[in-house]
């Protein structure tokens, strides 16, 4: 049984450690926040200018001056601090964020990632994604192993324009967990009931032992 979206998020949450400063992307990565153990001290960054992102507000308590990078209304926590965008990306670019967990359209065996544009389709822009993959110490991608057409998203080389080159450290899909290593991807964990053979059949990237 491949992992569900929520199980993938739960698996990704295991990448976090006590004291970590973390940036979570949109989509499945957002769900990771629900799986952080209560006794673990993790601070979520929102790149529009906030550390210590809290949960969504109660209805009627939304504050238009308090949003996350996905433009959703959120809340503060006791530890929260606010700062401007230049300082926010100084944190990101300067390697002060311990880990970013991001979605992707494609990843390649050399750690390349594409998640911002599809040629021929309307391009909305890269937002902060290029800064995150270039600057954050450890990049973990969480995504479905295959796209909606059933084609693998784990490639020998990305076909879409890149967000970052050689930046991904780990990939968590519904089938397995890969590490980007010398020569290709190494399977470090399989979803329950998923075999190495299943993974190989769904992967274009070189899988190394």
């Amino acid at each position, binding site marked *: 049984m491949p992992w569900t979206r929520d199980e993938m998020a739960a698996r990704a949450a295991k990448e976090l450690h006590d004291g970590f400063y973390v940036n979570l992307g949109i989509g499945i990565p957002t769900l990771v926040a629900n799986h952080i153990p209560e006794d673990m001290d993790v601070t979520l960054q929102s790149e529009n200018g906030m550390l210590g992102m809290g949960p969504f507000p109660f*209805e009627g308590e939304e504050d238009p001056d308090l949003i996350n990078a996905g433009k959703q209304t959120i809340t503060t926590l006791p530890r929260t601090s606010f700062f401007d*965008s230049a300082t926010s990306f100084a944190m990101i670019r300067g390697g002060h964020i311990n880990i970013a967990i991001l979605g992707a359209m494609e990843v390649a065996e050399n750690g390349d990632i594409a998640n911002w544009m599809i040629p021929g389709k309307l391009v*909305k822009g890269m937002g902060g994604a290029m800064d995150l993959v270039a600057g954050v110490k450890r990049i973990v991608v969480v995504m479905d192993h295959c796209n909606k057409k059933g084609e693998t998203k784990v490639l020998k080389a990305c076909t879409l324009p890149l967000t970052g080159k050689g930046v991904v450290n780990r990939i968590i899909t519904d089938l397995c967990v890969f590490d980007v290593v010398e020569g290709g991807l190494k399977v470090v964990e399989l979803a329950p009931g998923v075999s190495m053979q299943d993974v190989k059949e769904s992967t274009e990237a070189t899988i190394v032992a």
Partner: protein
Amino acid sequence: MSKKVYNTAAEALEGLTFDGMTVMAGGFGLCGIPENLILALRESGVKDITAISNNAGVDDFGLGLLLQTRQIKKMISSYVGENKEFERQYLSGELELEFNPQGTLAERCRAGGAGIPGFYTKTGVGTLVAEGKEHRDFNGETYILETGLVADLSIVKAEKADTHGNLVFNKTARNFNPPMAMAGKVTVAEVEEIVPTGDLDPDEIHLPGIFVQRIVKGTFEKRIEQRTTRKREHY
């Protein structure tokens, strides 16, 4: 003695606008945008603006209002497309668009304001963003050269100003406003409240008044783009 305070947004822009000008507009999404000055810019009729702003507003709010009237010739942004008119103009070739990574955009503004004409960053190396830019190695890693940005006019939004232009922002509405205020040849700030000079604690001022030439008190709609809430479980 301060002459920075103006009565209306239109007055605050008087003499500052010209066709073909570059305008930086603070804000992230619809959060912390200079609503009143955008409207005044529309009323001014100024054309062929190069707008530097992280986003492009929505169809009927924010910079979207200047797209409707086709006053913007080019945008420098990191993320757009919550906006049908933007899409139409872009796809038809009426609107030029330069995408900058968000952090590169913020740093380009801060650099421009700080007298730094160029800086190196890892962001974008190996991507379309790096094309045509100088590549250079520092300590065995490759970086690209990005340039500082300066605007003919920066319009920003703060929570409070004193009459000398010292600004305080509220929560995540700070975002691009301080670096863009630094990068304006002239910077006009609209605020929710103007307090007498001396009312702000000098240690709590987010942006010193030296970066702000004009101030106007605005009225704010503060539209929410994604209203997300949770259910109240306990009472």
